[in-house]
């Protein structure tokens, strides 16, 4: 059986796993944005928090993913369901690029633009929502893009704790020394990563303003 035949034959299962994978990645990115963007804003407002917050996010990034899944296993509510556990771990990984790029984006706003905004009598919130965040969108989406590509990859490892997704094929293939099985997981995962990269890259370019 050729690889193509194998893929077509198992298309229902592959499709199912791809959906699971996308769901995991999607929820992870939403959570990481919901936590990371406010943290990034906080860091841009209180530079003294930059070291502790970015430091922690950096440390999370260095923990090997398999080990991180293991560490989170005994955490009460998280360890109850494999999916929950996987999403928590993935969110920790996705945080760093999002926090970093939020901070970077806000810092990249031309100081003369910020000064004018202040001099025109805008409040801090108005400056944040009408000036700094809109002008940060391009860099912010660059961060989300990095996080997305990263998460698609690491999410395959979540199968090790039984969270499902495309990693199932890969782990099964490894166990059975079956390359076709491995590829049935790896190819869709790679395609997903490429698609996320292209879509988010497109959004990123749309928000690039000429200064």
């Amino acid at each position, binding site marked *: 059986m050729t690889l193509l035949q194998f893929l077509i034959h198992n298309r229902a299962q592959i499709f199912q796993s791809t959906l699971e994978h996308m769901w995991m990645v999607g929820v992870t990115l939403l959570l990481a944005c919901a936590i990371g963007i406010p943290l990034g804003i906080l860091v841009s407002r209180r530079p003294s928090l930059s070291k502790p917050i970015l430091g922690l996010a950096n440390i999370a990034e260095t923990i090997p993913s398999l080990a991180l899944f293991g560490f989170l296993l005994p955490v009460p509510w998280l360890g109850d369901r494999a999916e929950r556990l996987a999403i928590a771990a993935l969110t920790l990984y996705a945080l760093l690029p999002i926090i970093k790029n939020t901070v970077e984006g806000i810092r990249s706003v031309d100081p003369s633009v910020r000064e004018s905004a202040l001099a*025109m009598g805008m409040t801090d919130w108005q400056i944040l929502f009408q000036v700094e965040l*809109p002008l940060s969108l391009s860099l912010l989406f660059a961060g989300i893009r990095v996080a997305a590509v990263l998460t698609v990859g690491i999410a395959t490892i979540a199968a090790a704790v039984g969270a499902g997704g495309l990693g199932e094929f890969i782990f099964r293939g490894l166990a059975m020394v079956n390359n076709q099985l491995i590829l049935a997981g790896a190819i869709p995962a790679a395609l997903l990563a490429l698609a996320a990269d292209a879509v988010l890259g497109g959004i990123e370019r749309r928000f690039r*303003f000429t200064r």
Partner: protein
Amino acid sequence: MLPPRASAAHSNADSPATNEVAIEFRNVGFAIQKTQILSDVNLQVAAGETLVLLGRSGSGKSTALKLINRLLVPTEGEVRVSGRSTLAWDAIALRRGIGYVIQETGLFPHFTVEKNVALVPRLENWPEERIRQCVAELLQLVGLTGPGLAKRYPHQLSGGQRQRVGVARALAADPTILLMDEPFGALDPLTRSEIQREFQHLQKRLSKTVVFVTHDVREALLLATRIGLFENGRVHGIYSPAEFQASRDPKISACLATIHPETASATDTDGARGEVK
């Protein structure tokens, strides 16, 4: 038997026609950490006049300007706007009543010309109809009337056009005070002299209280009612343009020397009119 009221035309340069003081510096000092940037600054700006703060880079003139709209707060003394210390003002209310134009324009790159100009009226929640009308009038006023210009983004404009938008934005909510920090400094000489003359006319019509920072002596002489010469964070003196030109003060002579070698300054380069829009 009463003597006739002293004529209003007693104006010599030191006490401008109106007695109403719009801005006042009282023994103002400003320091960042240990570095003293301004010391003992005493100034009065009368309503409707154009006070030009002249001095070399680092003389503290821009800092003085930022003390007026409370972008900075004096470390000694006080700055009073309309008779109230800037610290007694609500910072937002104070700033909305003061237009601010800077060399880099500070236009919002993600806003069209129209939206940039409408910024303060929108913050003040004017009705849309009034905003539209106001923006149209202002663009007319600063000579930005090309078709479709209002819908363009700042990066699609020339330097001169951008600066005009900056002026229009500063004037939008009809502030009584206008602060300008080397607004025309980054423009090419031809555009600069054109826009300077336009501004001169504009000022005659609007009679705002203007504080104008520059290091260009010619610009100072052209636009000022009075010139405040800044030197190392202190006010060296305040002069009318006539006094300034007649002065024997070595510091002033040094300033004037920058323009006198070529007395041709008076003959305005007429080619300046043809700026490409």
